[in-house]
């Protein structure tokens, strides 16, 4: 068994097992850990495709930033020990059936499609991505930058506690926040 096949197989197994953990476990924190595991597997698949830069970006953005943000959201929103009603079996079976049907349809399309061979020159080094981003795709690059800034400001605005809507008696400015210096 050669090294490439081993790397592909283990990355694919990691991705799929992590994805199964991410959707099937009951505890939301375990879901996030499974999500991180799945994304590590996808980063490994990118490595086998020669896209080292993408693998690093994927790890940084998904596993690092998004995973931590999800843990924070769980911390701020959902008590982990609340009792939950179990999902009814017909609904689980229906969702699984839907996913299986979509998978079969996609696979049939892929089997029938004709793919050309690999490109003659593989441009996978990071400097090619930089050149592309700042020459051919500079508009998309700028739009993504604006989108990220708007999303960041919007996230702060949406998640911020609105001082006007606090309960009476604890109006903004009068009651000291817990932990604030007196």
């Amino acid at each position, binding site marked *: 068994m050669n090294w490439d096949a081993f790397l592909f197989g283990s990355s694919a197994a990691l991705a799929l097992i992590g994805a199964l953990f991410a959707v099937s476990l009951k505890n939301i924190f375990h879901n996030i850990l499974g999500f991180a595991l799945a994304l590590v597997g996808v980063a490994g698949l990118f490595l086998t495709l020669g896209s080292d830069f*993408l693998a690093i970006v994927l790890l940084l953005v998904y596993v690092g930033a998004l995973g931590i943000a999800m843990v924070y959201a769980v911390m701020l929103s959902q008590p982990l020990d609340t009792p939950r009603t179990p999902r009814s079996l017909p609904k689980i079976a229906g969702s699984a059936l839907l996913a299986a049907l979509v998978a079969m349809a996609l696979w049939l399309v892929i089997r029938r499609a004709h793919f050309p061979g690999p*490109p003659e020159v593989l441009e996978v080094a990071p400097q090619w991505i930089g050149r592309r981003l700042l020459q051919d795709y500079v508009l998309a690059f700028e739009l993504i930058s604006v989108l990220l800034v708007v999303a960041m400001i919007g996230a702060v605005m949406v*998640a911020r506690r609105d001082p006007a809507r606090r309960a009476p008696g604890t109006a903004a400015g009068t009651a000291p926040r817990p932990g604030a210096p007196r």
Partner: protein
Amino acid sequence: MSQLHWYLLVAVLLFCIGLYGLVQRRSLIAMLIALELMLAAISLNVVAITSLAGGDAESATGNVSSAGQVVAVILIGVAAAEGAIALSLFVAIQREVQSINVEDLSELKG
């Protein structure tokens, strides 16, 4: 099965596991996780196809194999923005309704 088909098979399975989670789960955060899995499967698809089957296709300035990676970088950026907005919305919803279970969020009747 060629090498490309193995990558596409993994991407299809990842996408459909995400779809299953998106339909079946009720916690908004779990649904966001499933959605991000689907997005990761799509970027895996883009990179695999352009680097293993970009043969006779040419973008405006040459080879398509790095163009696919640029598309994947843009996808990751969009996913990050979407995740940030969604998570802050969940925190705001939790503050208003005291729950992020989608079945508690149906205020419109009909």
